[in-house]
């Protein structure tokens, strides 16, 4: 039987989708703030009623109270009004819901919000604003790497993550890096162009920073 959360211990409660599924329906209530509270790492049971979760989104501490079955994507969209990430296929096939988890791109429709506790979540809104675009975002606008724009937030996040791990990619590496993202309007070539352009702009800056370090 799972223990109720203790008041000390590691920040991440260690609830995975698998442990949740194993224990779901057993019926123990866990209503203290997950993440702010703590656990000793033993299997825990959340829900089925809404539970408060402490998330770190775009550098800010945010609390959502959601049923444990709620995905990270739906928590961001429906509870924090961060609607940049989209639910398109709802099964990890299209990349429309891409956000960064500790700097790595993930499909937020495939992760429970409860599993994101203790991680740094970055959404497209956290990368720039219309008044202050990131280099990748500015390159997308300039190259017309968007049409209806519904897939664009996912592409912007995936492209940003790609350039973070590979600042000077080849065209083939860009294609591979973005192969998890689908676009129906057919913006791919101009997305590639935008990413290559952003890489070129960033590369001198990165080299300069490297020299200083």
């Amino acid at each position, binding site marked *: 039987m799972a223990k109720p959360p203790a008041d000390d211990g590691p920040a991440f409660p260690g609830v995975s989708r698998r442990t949740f599924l194993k224990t779901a329906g057993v019926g123990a209530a866990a209503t203290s703030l997950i993440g702010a509270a703590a656990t000793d790492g033993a299997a825990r049971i959340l829900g089925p009623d809404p539970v408060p979760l402490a998330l770190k989104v775009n550098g800010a501490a945010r609390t959502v109270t959601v049923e444990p079955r709620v995905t990270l994507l739906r928590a961001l969209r429906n509870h924090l009004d961060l609607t940049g990430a989209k639910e398109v296929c709802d099964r990890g096939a299209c990349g429309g819901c891409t956000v960064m988890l500790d700097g790595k791109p993930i499909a937020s429709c495939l992760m429970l919000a409860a599993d994101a506790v203790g991680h740094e979540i970055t959404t*497209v809104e956290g990368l720039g604003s*219309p008044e202050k675009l990131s280099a990748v975002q500015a390159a997308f606008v300039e190259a017309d790497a968007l049409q209806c*724009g519904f897939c664009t937030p996912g592409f*912007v996040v995936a492209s940003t993550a790609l350039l973070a791990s590979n600042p000077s990619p080849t065209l083939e590496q860009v294609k591979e890096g973005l192969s998890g993202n689908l676009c*129906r309007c*057919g913006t791919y070539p101009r997305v*590639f162009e935008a990413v290559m352009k952003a890489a070129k702009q960033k590369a001198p800056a990165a080299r300069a920073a490297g020299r200083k370090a």
Partner: protein
Amino acid sequence: MQQPPSSPKPEAPTVTYVVKAGPASAPRTMEVHAAEGDLKPWDLDSKLRVVKGRHPRLDGPLKVTGRAKYTFDVSMPGMLWGKMVRASVPAAEIVKIDTSKAERLPGVKAVWTTEARAVRFAGQDVAAVAAISPEVAEDAARLVEVTYDERPYVTDLQKAMEEGAPTVYNADQVPGSKNAPVKGNVVGPQVPRRGGVRGDVAKGFAEADVTVEATYYVPTHTHSPLETHGVIAKWEGDQLTVWASTQGISTVREGMAEFLGIDRKNVTVITDHMGGGFGSKLAASAEGSNFAGVACKLAQKAGAPVKLMLARDEEHLCTGNAPAALMTVKLGAKKDGTLTAIHHRSFGTAGIAGGAGTGGPSGNLYANTPNCLVEEHDVFTNAGPSAPLRAPGHPQGAFALESAMDELADKLGMDPLDLRRKNESSPVRLIEYEAGAKAIGWERRNKKAGDTAGPRKRGIGMASGNWYVIARGSGVGAEVKVHRDGSVEVFQGSQDIGTGFKTAMAMVVAEELGLTPHDVTVHVGDTRWPQGVGSGGSNTTNSVAPAVRLAAHDARTRLFAIAAPLLGAKPEDLDAAGGKVFVAATPSKSMAFRAAAAKMPNEVVSAVAERKKQYETFRQDLAGAQFAEVEVDTETGNIRVLKVVSANDCGFPINTLTTESQIIGAMIQGVSWALFENRVLDRTVGTMVNPNLEAYKILGAADMFEAVPIVVEVANAGNNTSAAGIGEPPIVPTLAAIANAVYNATGARIHTLPLTPDKVLAHLVRRG
């Protein structure tokens, strides 16, 4: 091509303009008549400063930062979440819909059930719920119990044509058959609306030295926009506001008013940003679902706003698709390649709907051919109804016609491009042939198909396409407001479905007022603004831009009247550019646009205009030609598309940057259709096997090829901006261009799409 007759001369007074029309390399001076008050069309002599330029779209910053609010992103206090329940069987009578368990679920606020009893496809509307969260709504939908009395069904096109096949409709229920003969599930032959019957094909084939005949098949393609269909419905007293993911806010307004029995004036429809439609979002709800009406009823029952967005599987099942088609094309030609006859006979299935014709290209593309017969048949199947998809019927029809043209060229021993040149009637397409052939390196193609060494074979192919200049002649409005601080707004009741329409309208206003597009704020996507059009038929820009230009020109005229005395000149001697109003002959005599606006007697100049009818155009057809290079791995059967060149015309492109984006997008959707896409219905249970985005495969980044758009500017003079449409024409030739390139690479002539590796290998084995 044979020019369709111009519109009859009007009773109303007209103005006459002499314009330099056509492509720059082959100009033609012509007279055009327009309703009084219209402006001279921009033509080859016009010195345009903004229009035809390349401007990044104005809503780009909102879209790349996730700030653009699509219908899917709209939320409001107290909002409920709707979820539809859909028929799980393809044919049945509904015996009972039991919603009691769903109603008892905590958090469920309203339930709707259909009154219809006959189920004709798996995915049809049956019931719906509204609940406090999407998760609870999904739970509730699963608790709705439907009892069916199942009936025989047929989902396969060819099986549906067989005698004794289960009929989708009783004889007296067949929709839209009018005068066409009906036999079982088959309605036809029907002759298409445009083109289709000329001369006598029997005589034409008798005169031919060479004939070819083959049967081609294109499977059902689903539009698969990334934003699914959906609405938020909100009542305030008798006033209804609907946020809709739609290509036609006016259509949604009219459809909801009719369904609910309320006045149109009580319905407002808003579409700020729209996540793709490709023709599937032109109906009030969707072609196979009345979900928007249902959402309005749920909101009424619950006394709260209801958001009802379809899930991905529903998007495949009930929102429309491009019909599958089985097409037999027979061509006859003289030894020199001159076509003597074209016979196109097609059987298409739009599921439970009609409208599966594919004869547009055969009936119109080689319009000099004296003998032509197009016979179309609709075949009903127990599947979701089709919706217009990017040049409806034309990509399928062009796949058949343009594959057959290559087969004819082969039999004649002619270069396929020469065969087309020989039969070409559009001076514009002739220009596109040259531009495209040069860009692809046409001379590099294999002189004999498959004549290359090694297992990975490259080949080059091409195909032509055709579409029409479609525009709303009148009844489209626009309002341009200039404020006394010099800021400018335009209001227009059409919607930007991702084409860049908003930015194009800003460019038209900027051209007239001497500003940059960034100086103009464009308000679209709201039925409270002046009347707009549904975005179908590639008609939005050319229907709306002329009205926007008229309104902007009116505002300009009024500002010039204010500025003229200050500059010591007459209003007609002034010009505007670079944010300044100046004397055209002495540009140093100038004042800032903002300074002129500051002298306005009132706070706002509001210029309202309606589109004027015009009676001639340089051409009423749009041409288009595509060239493709592919590499086929003859050991795996895998096809890689290396490069596609698309040469297209759309009158004057308002924004060349976004025009190119549309061309690129259309060729990508076409390649995706040629290589991958195929809606699969399970014959043993009648439901869709792949209603998702991993098994219904669309082209992804890793499949991407070099896409080269070529825009051939044509001063079409058909309206005061000379604009025509571009969204649809560039998908028309793609399927055939890819198949022809595969043939050139390997010698495998594949008549059935998609061009999957198994088919390539089977053909190579058969060839030995």
